[in-house]
């Protein structure tokens, strides 16, 4: 691990200004992903700004009937929140499908959104990777690609976003509230928050340098039968091969978002019109334009079947 200075931020705006003042500065909250990457020297911050004292862990109702989740709310607390369990159960289910009890106790809401890919070539510092070193090339392309993306890929990167929580947030039309180094605030719709890799896979989100997430907001509950089907190599504590987050109403209409298939949670609103006609019709539209390898083509079948399983559940 490279040496770094350590400080505790006193206000979100101060933290953002401090982070923007130095290219090597990084925020740290739960630290479960950042420290892992720092040990491997994939992340090499010179300055760590600890957000732990910012009191951004509250979960409270909004005036329009939704929920405002503090950026530092722990994954365990968010999954266990009574309002989330009742009104946004797909979010509880997605959180509980991810990581381990220990990690969920530490990992935060904002950190979960910002966690980096688990592409094994990103982790192997002996192999070229455009995320680690822009322009170096992608070792995954032409390599072992069973776990890699099949949608929205580019010639520069085929990594997936590893988060379960983010898939549910995308399904629920969350908003990401931020403060910028100049003190200005904004809300980034979750659909625009994560980027596709294109030519710059090292730029993963819409955040500007130093911009700090302060909360994630959920619109008022939409009801429906909500589920998160995660398919993985082990029954617990493994990343998704494919995951399917669904909201299904009694008439068969609904929403669907996929995890494990792209550089961001994958949702195509137009495809949802096909939901009353079943999983095959829906996935035909949802997976259109997929680019697969012999090793990961199974993800398309898996997505259709996982959606079929969600649709087969009682809707009452």
């Amino acid at each position: 691990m490279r040496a770094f200075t350590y400080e505790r931020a006193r206000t979100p705006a101060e933290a953002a200004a401090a982070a923007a003042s130095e290219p090597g500065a990084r925020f740290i909250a739960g630290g479960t992903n950042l420290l892992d990457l720092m040990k491997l020297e994939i992340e090499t911050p010179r300055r760590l700004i600890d957000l732990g004292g910012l009191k951004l862990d509250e979960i409270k109702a909004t005036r329009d009937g939704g929920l405002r989740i503090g950026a530092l709310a722990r994954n365990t607390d968010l999954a266990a929140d009574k309002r989330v369990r009742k009104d946004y159960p797909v979010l509880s289910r997605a959180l509980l499908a991810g990581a381990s009890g220990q990690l969920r106790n530490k990992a935060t809401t904002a950190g979960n959104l910002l966690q980096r890919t688990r592409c094994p070539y990103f982790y192997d510092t002996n192999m070229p990777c455009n995320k680690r070193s822009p322009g170096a090339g992608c070792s995954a392309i032409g390599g072992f690609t069973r776990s890699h993306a099949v949608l929205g890929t580019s010639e520069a990167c085929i990594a997936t976003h590893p988060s379960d929580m983010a898939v549910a947030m995308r399904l629920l039309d969350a908003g990401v509230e931020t403060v910028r180094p100049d003190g200005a605030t904004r809300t980034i719709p979750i659909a625009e928050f994560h980027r596709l890799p294109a030519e710059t896979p090292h730029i993963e989100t819409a955040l500007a340098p130093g911009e700090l997430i302060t909360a994630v907001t959920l619109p008022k509950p939409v009801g429906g039968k909500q589920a998160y089907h995660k398919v993985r190599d082990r029954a617990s504590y493994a990343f998704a091969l494919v995951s399917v987050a669904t909201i299904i109403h009694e008439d068969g209409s609904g929403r669907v978002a996929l995890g494990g298939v792209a550089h961001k949670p994958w949702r195509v609103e137009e495809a949802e019109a096909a939901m009353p006609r079943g999983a095959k019709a829906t996935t035909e539209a949802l997976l259109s334009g997929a680019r697969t390898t012999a090793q990961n083509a199974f993800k398309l079948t898996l997505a259709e079947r996982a959606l079929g399983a969600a649709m087969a559940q009682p809707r009452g």
Partner: protein
Amino acid sequence: MVEQSDAGLSRRGLMAVGVASAAVASAPSATAAPAQDAPILATVTLEVNDRKQTLHLDTRTTLLDALREHLKLTGTKKGCDHGQCGACTVIVEGRRINACLTLAVMHEGDTITTIEGLGTPERLHPLQAAFVRHDGYQCGYCTPGQICSAKAMLDEIKAGVPSHVTADLSDKPKLTEAELRERMSGNICRCGAYSNIVEAIAEVAGGLVKGEPA
């Protein structure tokens, strides 16, 4: 407040290393540590097993290394050092976490319980006694982490925290085998003592409810 003499020694040692690396970095050498990696020190006070401990540490020191290398509490084990195996599980502010994936300096004033704080050879914690009784280990390396994890995990069930296998999110979670296995999945036992670990934890928890098959 107790100031550990070990910590004082290691601080001086670290500073000497820092000066040395700064001195050699100006001369071109493939092996010299770059000057910017000279250790940066910080002070943190932790309350470990009911005892206040003030440490002067390289900011890079994980909570795990602070416990093991500086406080010599070697009951907490280093397995993968990447949050994958759970051998380093300790209880911080009442919650189980991976001590390897957090920095000591991030825990100013925090209350930390390690396996040494749960029980002693003369006065075993009920979970320790149950692990012995049920043969919940073979090599024993993962055991301190398993036990710290189990202690906090049972508190999570009591607090009503749901899990991936909880059938109904509006219900209190039930103490089933499937629940215990899912909730302990962050603790790997390479010897494969899982079934005995489940029995040991179940006994301390007061027995299992017959649940849906896992």
